């Protein structure tokens, strides 16, 4: 492949416009089909039995009564999902999470499942399954779990990454460290040092569509899976491996997806549905209830973070240090590691050190959630940065500008930055009218910065040109929020045709080559690169066909604005051939015209954002209200600016919910107490103001159009921005997220009592 991904400044005709998305009409008429909207003939209803205990040995499971119930067609336990992971520890964890083997590791852990002719019988059957548990002591709090007296979740875990291999097992699976310079020396040079500890509670991605799939396994080993997922190719790999199927025989179709935010990046119920179908010999539909979604899917880490930052009187940061403990659920993860990498990524630091500890707890397996691990680290660091600016007597924005990373800065996580947007977002914030707007009593303004890496990855795209000149674009990247529109714009741009002639779809796993999932803000970045590459390949063929039609050498044919042009004076009498004209003749010039692309889109540009918010606090009740909110973020290049704004606004709203009210609440019994939208409080429409956005475009040098990912960074700054605003409003520094009214009121009372 000789595709050149480098940025070239160019004028755009389609990219940067705001047309209606191609999948929109089905979504406003109710016709779009999501995970639970698909049915197959003879389909059964699958239901999962879940552990009521946070930590228990599964001594026995008797399914005989359930199997005898009329209408029950299959009952499965872990025995029906034997371990085929062959030493792949990460896959084994996924398998064990799908169906508990020896122990139930959290409230909601699946222990058995049934398939029956209807939901009523399936529910009855679950009640007939007898599970004998030996309840074990449990631990759900991240700090308690890290303590050496804590109940052990897995006695085979010996902390990795320590200088000496530990002799005793613990709940800390791994220690990681990043940084450079000498923090001791740096702190010695500091005139001011701020040191604080922070906690954040566990949150859920909160997608409105519960996990849902329809699985159908045939006796010959072929199978179909219809599922809402962020990556159907990844789901195919997982399911094929866990069920011992051949990947090419398992066709996975990605339904429309009703939100994922990282929570639909690995399998949960799908292998269970396939195993039920295999046993029953009929298709099985498995849809999680909202209660199951909260208890058994998704959440992000709960964290406990210590931060120490020192600076000179002139505002230069001399040293920065953080210790981060992140909960992983009961399985090993790398969540603290990401937190440790992102914590100080916004700043130019001579001396920096971060240490991360991955901590096992009896909670659901931690999953990625939009810029996973970064918001909590940013909450701690950006709160301390604000406090330090205050102590020095500098403006919070100026202090950040003075210390902001720039091109050539060594990032706190290691490499040296190319062109980046932290400085420009800070300058934009400094001059934003929001910063000068007056505030009333009990209102405060806060701001904070955020960073995310952005990913690229394996991508596959087919671009087919119909004989009428219209273009079908088949992509392997799941569209979570409008990428079919942006990719159609890119195809139109590259081919030089109108957007309305391009129709993009997400192809199933049997129609395209492997494609990574939509995570890490990679959707538009990587698939637009593959689309550009596919379009360029198609243009090569279009030029060849035009050359044939004119009977001239292909080297004399160029492509401009949707037309083949014969260059040179000798072809003066040849009027340009449009894509449509070339397509019409394709049957006689060599057959269908298509462009394909299989590539690894590497070189995703890192992303920075700075947010401003105004918060009003009711000092008598601790109640907060978001008065005004502004997001400034670098997009590299906004392909469809409206959907870029949408990503900024959506991430900010999720961050606001996290900052103020969202949290997993566990009882002393280790059971989740708020597994529903009533008491897991995501923001409602009346909780939020309009969310203003400002898109900056600092081109990514590693993308032809300069595109960076935009999906995740917007959730990183809000926690700290709101904490800083609350501090500026009522003078208390909130160190525990969410800043729920009882926590704010308690902090205010403590302050008032001196």
């Amino acid at each position, binding site marked *: 492949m000789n595709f050149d991904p480098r940025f070239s400044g160019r004028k755009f005709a389609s990219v940067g416009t705001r047309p209606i998305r191609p999948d929109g009409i089905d979504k406003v008429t109710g016709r779009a089909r999501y995970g639970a909207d698909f049915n197959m003939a003879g389909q059964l209803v699958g239901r999962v039995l879940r552990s009521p205990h946070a930590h228990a040995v599964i001594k026995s499971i008797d399914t005989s009564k359930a199997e005898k119930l009329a209408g029950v067609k299959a009952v499965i336990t872990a025995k029906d999902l034997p371990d085929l992971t062959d030493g792949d520890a990460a896959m084994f964890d996924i398998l064990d999470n799908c169906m508990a083997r020896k122990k139930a590791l959290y409230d909601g852990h699946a222990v058995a499942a049934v398939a029956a002719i209807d939901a009523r019988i399936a529910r009855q059957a679950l009640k007939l399954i007898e599970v004998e548990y030996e309840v074990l002591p449990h631990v759900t709090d991240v700090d308690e779990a890290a303590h050496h007296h804590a109940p052990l979740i897995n006695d085979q875990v010996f902390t990795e990454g320590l200088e000496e291999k530990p002799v005793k097992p613990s709940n800390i699976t791994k220690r990681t*460290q990043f940084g450079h310079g000498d923090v001791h020396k740096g702190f010695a040079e500091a005139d001011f040092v701020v040191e604080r500890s922070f906690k954040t509670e566990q949150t859920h*991605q909160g997608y409105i569509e519960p996990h849902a799939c329809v699985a159908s396994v045939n006796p010959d080993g072929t199978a179909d899976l219809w599922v809402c997922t962020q990556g159907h190719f990844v789901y195919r790999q997982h399911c094929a491996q866990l069920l011992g199927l051949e990947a090419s025989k398992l066709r996975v179709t990605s339904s429309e997806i009703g939100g994922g935010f990282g929570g639909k990046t690995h399998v949960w119920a799908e292998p269970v549905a396939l195993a039920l179908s295999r046993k029953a010999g009929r298709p099985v539909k498995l849809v999680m209830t909202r209660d199951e979604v909260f208890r058994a899917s998704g959440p992000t880490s709960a964290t406990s973070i210590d931060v120490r930052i020192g600076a000179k009187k002139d505002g230069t940061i001399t040293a920065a240090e953080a210790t981060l403990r992140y909960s992983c659920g009961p399985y090993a993860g790398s969540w603290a590691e990401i937190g440790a*990498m992102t914590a100080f990524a916004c700043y130019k630091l001579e001396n920096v050190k971060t240490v991360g500890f991955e901590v096992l707890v009896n909670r659901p397996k931690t999953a990625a959630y939009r810029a996973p691990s970064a918001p909590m680290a940013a909450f701690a660091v950006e709160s301390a940065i604000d406090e330090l600016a205050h102590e020095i007597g500098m403006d919070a924005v100026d202090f950040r500008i003075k210390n902001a990373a720039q091109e050539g800065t060594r990032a706190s996580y290691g490499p040296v930055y190319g062109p980046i947007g932290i400085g420009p977002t800070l300058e934009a914030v400094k001059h934003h009218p929001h910063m000068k707007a007056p505030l009333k009593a009990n209102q405060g303004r806060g701001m904070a910065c955020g960073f995310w890496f952005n990913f690229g990855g394996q991508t596959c795209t087919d671009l087919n040109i119909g004989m009428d000149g219209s273009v079908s674009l088949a992509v392997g990247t799941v569209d979570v929020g409008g990428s079919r529109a942006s990719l159609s714009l890119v195809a139109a741009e590259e081919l030089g045709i109108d957007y309305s002639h391009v129709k993009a779809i997400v192809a199933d796993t049997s129609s395209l080559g492997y494609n990574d999932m939509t995570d*890490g803000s990679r959707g538009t970045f990587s698939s637009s690169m593959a689309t550009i590459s596919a379009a360029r390949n198609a243009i090569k063929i279009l030029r060849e066909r035009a050359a044939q039609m004119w009977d001239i050498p292909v080297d004399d044919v160029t492509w401009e604005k949707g037309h083949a042009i014969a260059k040179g004076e000798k072809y003066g009498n040849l009027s340009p051939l449009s894509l449509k004209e070339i397509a019409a003749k394709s049957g006689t010039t060599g057959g269908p015209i298509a462009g394909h692309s299989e590539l690894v889109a590497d*070189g*995703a540009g890192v992303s920075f954002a700075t947010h401003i918010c105004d918060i009003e606090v009711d000092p008598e009740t601790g109640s907060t209200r978001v008065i005004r909110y502004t997001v400034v973020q670098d997009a590299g290049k906004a392909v469809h600016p409206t959907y870029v704004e949408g990503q900024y606004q959506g991430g900010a709203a999720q961050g606001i919910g996290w900052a103020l009210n969202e949290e997993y609440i566990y009882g002393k019994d280790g059971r989740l107490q708020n597994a529903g939208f009533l008491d897991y409080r995501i923001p409602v429409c009346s909780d939020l103001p309009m969310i203003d956005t400002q898109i900056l475009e600092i081109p990514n*040098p590693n993308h032809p159009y300069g595109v960076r990912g935009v999906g995740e960074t917007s959730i990183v700054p809000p926690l700290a921005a709101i904490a800083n605003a609350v501090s500026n409003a009522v003078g208390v520094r909130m160190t525990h997220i969410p800043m729920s009214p009882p926590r704010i009121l308690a902090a205010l009372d403590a302050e008032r009592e001196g």
Partner: protein
Amino acid sequence: MVEVTLWGSLSAVAGGKARHEIEAKDIRELFRKLAEQYPGIEPWIDRGIAVAIDGTIYRDTWSKELPEGAEIFLLPRLAGG
């Protein structure tokens, strides 16, 4: 010859040494030579290592050439949302 820096945890596997001079033309060769020298690194490579070449992160393009004198930094491969 390129100078490669390993992040904290990986350098622990490489005898506590963060900086390494290695003769490698691309990422594939770099990984091979590192694994030859420090067998403990192999499982880390299997789990996924990202390579920053002059600040740009590559996760999967093992054929990526390492320009002479380039700044090479190894990082863990991450999950996203």
